């Protein structure tokens, strides 16, 4: 998600925004939350990136900052909070179903942020994504089954089917993880 490709910064902005939705936070707190959520994948994240993103968010009117006690020129001393507009952007991002396929890290962070901020039920987000994937799976599978054995086109379609299945299986794992545990089950 930090690859400098098309739209990468946008994703990053929304992830950072969503993590602010829980409560006003220092930059280093956000960084720690991202690190925790991404595990070893977060190691590659440039520490300065969170601050750059926060500055951009502030400039765009999506976040505000307030200097807390201590030296005013240190970014670490600033506490960031969402503006109303920022709040709106987060809600929109949580509700949006990404397609053609969700970026794994983006989707993962979306669930974490949704749960932390209490803005959306992670299971509802999983359900929405699953609906989308299953419709595509149905289309791809029908097309694949309509092909004769050993057709070249069938092979390509089978690849699509298998990828969709893998995505759906991961959603099952997400569902298990975010389902509230019951003692008697």
């Amino acid at each position: 998600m930090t690859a400098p490709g098309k739209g990468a910064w946008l994703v990053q902005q929304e992830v950072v925004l969503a993590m602010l939705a829980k409560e006003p936070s220092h930059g280093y707190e956000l960084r720690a939350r991202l690190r925790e959520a991404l595990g070893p994948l977060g190691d590659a994240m440039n520490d300065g990136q969170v601050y750059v993103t926060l500055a951009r968010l502030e400039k765009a009117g999506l976040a505000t900052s307030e200097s807390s006690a201590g030296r005013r020129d240190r970014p670490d001393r600033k506490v960031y909070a969402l503006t109303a507009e920022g709040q709106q952007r987060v809600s929109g991002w949580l509700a949006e179903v990404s397609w053609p396929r969700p970026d794994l890290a983006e989707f993962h962070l979306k669930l974490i942020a949704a749960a932390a901020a209490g803005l959306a039920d992670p299971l509802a987000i999983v359900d929405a994504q699953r609906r989308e994937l299953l419709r595509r799976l149905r289309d791809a599978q029908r097309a694949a089954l309509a092909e004769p054995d050993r057709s070249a086109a069938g092979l390509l379609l089978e690849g699509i089917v298998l990828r969709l299945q893998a995505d759906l299986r991961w959603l099952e794992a997400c569902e298990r993880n975010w389902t509230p545990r019951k003692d008697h089950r």
Partner: protein
Amino acid sequence: MNDVGASVLRARGLRKDYGKGEGLVRAVDEVDLDVASGETVAVMGPSGCGKSTLLHLLGGLDRPSGGELWLTDQRIDQLGERALARLRRDKIGFIFQAFHLMDELTAAENVELPALLAGRSARSARRRAAELLDRVGLADRAGHLPSQLSGGQRQRVAIARALVSDPQLVLADEPTGNLDSQATVEVLRMFEDLHSAGQTLLVVTHDSRIAATSDRLISMRDGAFVDETRLTGGSSGDLGSLAGLNGLTE
């Protein structure tokens, strides 16, 4: 697209409890369900969510703790044991994960058996079994024992058996659960075939490929329905983007 007609299966507030007091587990929790004639419905959910219990209730294999259940116009949750057994035999076809074929009977005999039990003549049962084995692509395996058939072939025999009494409803419980991917494709083709023939079908599964053959998909968690998706008539068509074809057309 199929013509979707009157309600074949209808459940209201269907419930199944196990244990009591502190240890009470509600395996099926106030389920409402309507399956229309010609419709294929899949119920999906993690293991332990109650979907198999639900299927057993819907097929009269187990008794609900509460709620009401109708098959077409007949209320069936209060039927006596014998009437219920007759109803299962005549009006419902079952397909199970482990096939449940009789090991000592041939494929054809397995398919004929329910028709004979329902009082059909031996000749008519044999003719119907032959038709169905042909339909599932196993005409040349009619004399084989289950042990001489592959997993996918056994499940196709079981599908033929489920259809032998022209049931109003077919219920399938993890029909691909014991199959490898090639055999799964065979069963998928059969389900697509049943679907286009207008067979009313309800399948519980955690295999997304089988679920994707349905018109409507219901997600189940902790004994209750939590989400419903209509797979037909939705957005679709840009499969190319999944195969990386987007950039090639710009």
